[in-house]
């Protein structure tokens, strides 16, 4: 049961968003720009960064909701997403995305964990300033979303297939102008 009274039946972040639409508006607009707007990082790559950080923060709802979206965009399956979460260096992801995931992992621990060497490595394999910026902000933003979801003890469906089934729909609707209750 959630720590506070939330509208019933809404999973994860949707409960607190329905409780407080004034803050939800800006949270959703931030997610829309970070994860869906035009960018040299694909939607799949950005959702993967979000999934990886949510996994490090042990947030079940976020890692499955965004993992579902990542596997939808990247046209892979959940075992591949799970492999990225457990050991991304062993996957066939590009050297650039691996360098960005390494930066995201450091941000999850704390901003000061990011080293000049990590930044240099990312640049060496082709990352731009904007890609580094967006990686750091996606990682930081999910340290917020994960804490919002778990800090209020929200409810989340435990069947991972539900997140996969809903991913295509979620990909179509985006993060703004969607119906919280559907």
């Amino acid at each position, binding site marked *: 049961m959630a720590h506070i009274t939330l509208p019933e039946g809404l999973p994860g972040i949707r409960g607190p968003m329905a409780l407080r639409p*004034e803050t939800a508006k800006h949270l959703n607009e*931030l997610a829309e720009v970070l994860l869906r707007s035009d960018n040299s990082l694909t939607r799949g790559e950005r959702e993967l960064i979000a999934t990886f950080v949510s996994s490090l923060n042990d947030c079940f709802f976020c890692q499955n909701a965004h993992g579902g979206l990542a596997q939808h965009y990247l046209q892979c399956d959940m075992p591949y997403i799970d492999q990225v979460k457990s050991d991304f260096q062993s996957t066939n992801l590009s050297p650039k995305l691996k360098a960005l995931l390494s930066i995201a992992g450091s941000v999850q621990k704390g901003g000061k964990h*990011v080293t000049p060497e990590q930044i240099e490595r990312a640049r060496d394999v082709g990352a731009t300033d904007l890609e580094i910026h967006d990686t750091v*902000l996606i990682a930081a933003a999910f340290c917020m979303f*994960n*804490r919002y979801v778990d800090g209020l003890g929200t409810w989340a469906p435990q069947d991972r297939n539900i997140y996969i089934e809903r991913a295509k729909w979620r990909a179509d609707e985006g993060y703004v102008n969607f119906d919280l209750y559907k």
Partner: protein
Amino acid sequence: MAHIDVPGGVPGIRSLVMFRPETGQHLYALAQVLLRGDSPLTPAERELIAAHVSARNNCTFCRDSHAAAARELFEENRALVDCVIHNVHSGALSLKLKSLLNIAGKVQLNGKEVKQEDIDEARRNGAADRDIHDTVLIAATFSMFNRYVDGLGSLTPTDPEAYAEMGRRLATKGYSLPQPVKD
């Protein structure tokens, strides 16, 4: 020096949102609603929660700028800001605010660290659902801002007067997106 090519001489998050106003506008709008909008907690109490979380995340820029804002807003009770940041017992803090700061500290570690007993204690001390919601979201949001500011190695002023000035600006004008530097 910052990890990316942000405007020179501009401190902390201001340099980052000038680099990327598309995301910056939403970050500032969120801060304004969360710290100045409708809430059972006063702006001073909310700035104090922000400074407390930033201190725990070892983010000097956010700690000192929000502590300065809290001092301005607490006026004659400004000394309690230092008590909170330096983790010194302060009799001036209400039991309700103490128990909300405890919840904020748990959120800073990880959302799952917030336990039923923390919530029960806050309720016994008079906290309602909205107090708890706003505390959790402020603590979560500063767990983002702190990582954003330090993760990109943004400029952290060392002059205390620089923060005092930021505190006065934040206390009187709130949060509005800094405009790009003109060439």
